[in-house]
């Protein structure tokens, strides 16, 4: 008898050891359930983060732009509009009103992790006879790089956008026949042309973006797009990308600007991600429920089998609370041991998956990292489920009338 364990633990462990086959079966069931949860969670997290990274690689989670110009109906003092047809106004490039103030306001929000001003507008990039329509993006590299991982995408040259430098995509570089160090002409849709030196070439893995986006210094873009001192948008990232829409609405409520989150601009993608998360949650719930029912059923049988022993324990001075704890401990221990084996099994499944799910070139299809947190949560969760599922049989055992139990 282990002198470092109290009565309840000694009784619980002996009961489990005595019904070893039942105990092993239910531990195996819990282990299998936990392994499925661990494997599926890691797989889905990996898949989602891969899709997510690809989507948010080249766009901020929240973009603040000036409110759209709206044509107002002409009214002659009464309720009836005088003009029969109302044409929507064309949108000109405008600056976010008092953008520094808006930026400072956003910076103070606890959920915001990075904010950057951006000047963006249409233009043309030309070299010799070749000319391509581009989207000129003026950035402040320090803050912009905290939102868009542009540095990681540089495949030639380096990330530098001083007054005379420009960063272009691989597609545009091919179309114009330029390489790092070459000059190209950049001009806005209407305005003066400027000659810039290609300092770096990026590859976002997206043909459209590689052919269309060019990055210059914020001041260069301001001057070219006739937005001196202004910015066309403020971009920001928040701690939890899935709460971006909530933050966007908070910002919109506090400022007179239009705020778009990636959730509204990528509605279909977000819906697909949410559906995936929900289906995973459902699967986890039902696997957990199955494990819980397994533990509960084993303990219910155990209570019936041991009713005489429970009766005699009660007769010799064991309280209802002690009996309750004996069975709760059994549930918790079975849940915990099952979850430990399940975590190990899940890790084996993941390792197997990494070996199988590969691209034709041998590289990993997408990165799956099973974070230690996942195993900790699975273990704590399964232990709690074990305790909770033991609650009903434990109450039943505690409430057994000792006189009836002893006499059978």
């Amino acid at each position, binding site marked *: 008898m282990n002198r470092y364990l109290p009565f309840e633990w*000694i009784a619980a462990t002996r009961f489990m050891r005595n019904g070893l086959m039942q105990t092993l079966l239910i531990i195996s069931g819990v282990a299998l359930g936990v392994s499925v949860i661990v494997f599926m969670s890691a797989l889905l997290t990996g898949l989602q983060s891969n899709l997510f990274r690809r989507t948010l690689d080249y766009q901020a989670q929240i973009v603040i732009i000036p409110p759209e110009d709206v044509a107002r109906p002409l009214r002659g003092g009464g309720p009836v509009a005088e003009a029969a047809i109302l044409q929507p106004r064309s949108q000109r490039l405008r600056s976010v009103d008092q953008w520094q103030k808006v930026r400072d306001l956003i910076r103070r929000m606890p959920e915001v992790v990075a904010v950057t001003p951006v000047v963006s507008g249409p233009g043309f990039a030309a070299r010799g006879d070749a000319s391509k329509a581009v989207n000129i993006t003026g950035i402040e590299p320090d803050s912009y790089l905290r939102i868009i991982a542009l540095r990681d995408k540089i495949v030639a040259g380096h990330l530098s956008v001083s007054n005379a430098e420009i960063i272009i995509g691989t597609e545009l570089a091919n179309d114009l026949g330029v390489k790092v160090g070459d000059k190209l002409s950049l001009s806005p849709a209407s305005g003066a042309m400027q000659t810039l030196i290609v300092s770096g070439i990026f590859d976002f893995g997206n043909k459209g973006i590689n052919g269309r986006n060019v990055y210059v210094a914020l001041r260069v873009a301001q001057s070219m797009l006739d937005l001196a001192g202004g910015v066309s948008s403020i971009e920001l990232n928040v701690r939890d990308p899935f709460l971006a829409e909530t933050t966007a609405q908070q910002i919109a409520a506090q400022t007179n600007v239009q705020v778009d989150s990636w959730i509204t601009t990528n509605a279909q993608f977000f819906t697909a991600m949410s559906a995936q998360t929900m289906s995973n949650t459902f699967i986890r719930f039902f696997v957990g429920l199955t494990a819980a029912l397994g533990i509960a059923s084993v303990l219910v049988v155990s209570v019936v089998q041991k009713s005489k022993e429970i009766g005699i324990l009660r007769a010799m*001075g064991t309280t209802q609370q002690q009996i309750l704890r004996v069975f709760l401990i059994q549930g918790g221990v079975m849940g915990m041991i099952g979850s430990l084996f399940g975590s190990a099994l899940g890790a084996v499944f993941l390792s197997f998956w990494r070996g199988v799910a590969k691209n034709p070139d041998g590289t990993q299809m997408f990165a799956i990292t099973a974070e230690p947190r996942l195993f900790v949560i699975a273990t704590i969760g399964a232990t709690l489920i074990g305790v909770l599922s033991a609650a009903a049989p434990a109450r039943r055992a505690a409430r057994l009338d000792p006189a009836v139990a002893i006499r059978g």
Partner: protein
Amino acid sequence: MADIASAAQPVLQLVNVHKSYGTGTRVEQEVLRGIDLVLRKGEFAALIGPSGSGKSTLLNLIGLLDRASSGQLFIDGEETGALDDTSLTRLRGRSIGFVFQHSYLLEEFTALENVMMPLLATHGWPSEAMRTTALELLGRVGLERWKDHKATELSGGQQQRVAIARALAMKPPMILADEPTGNLDTRSADGVFDLLREVNSHLGTSFLIVTHDTRLAQRCDRIIELVDGRIVSDQPNLQVVRHEAGD
């Protein structure tokens, strides 16, 4: 013996105890009808009666496994009517030892651990002192050599001896024995009964033994007869008294 007993303090006292089942329904059945009973320290009494006379019900009440419908029940001087379940359980643990027809040893534990079990349940954590007490008790019932054997590895008589040692673990003033030899062959039954008597005479533990076995009842100091929920006879067993006086 009876005179000595009457001078000793009561370990059990019942005052006008009634017990009914199905109270308030059309099938209300009164099982015990006004029981008055005193068991004093060191007494060795048999409770006899035909089937359905209320012996088991009375034993459950005295063992604090059930509550009386009315009347008062004192265990070791403490009135039990107002106690909650936990207090009753604690009082039961320290004041009453049980020996049943079947030993009901916990098969997960060794003989020694079974004897330690009441101490462990009461104090919470195992200790060397508990082990020493349990070893002493196993020695008293002649099973020290079997201390590490599981209950299932012992004979019926040995199991019942372990159950007696277990009942003595908390040094209770009273042991309730329900047909303690009912499941044993004659030889083992005699051995177990002799052991109960030895415990009674050496430790002064009071015994109330429920039995159908008249031979066994005739070896007790006092015989209480229950018929239809009433005590119809409560006499010292003169045969034993005379025999002991002759000794």
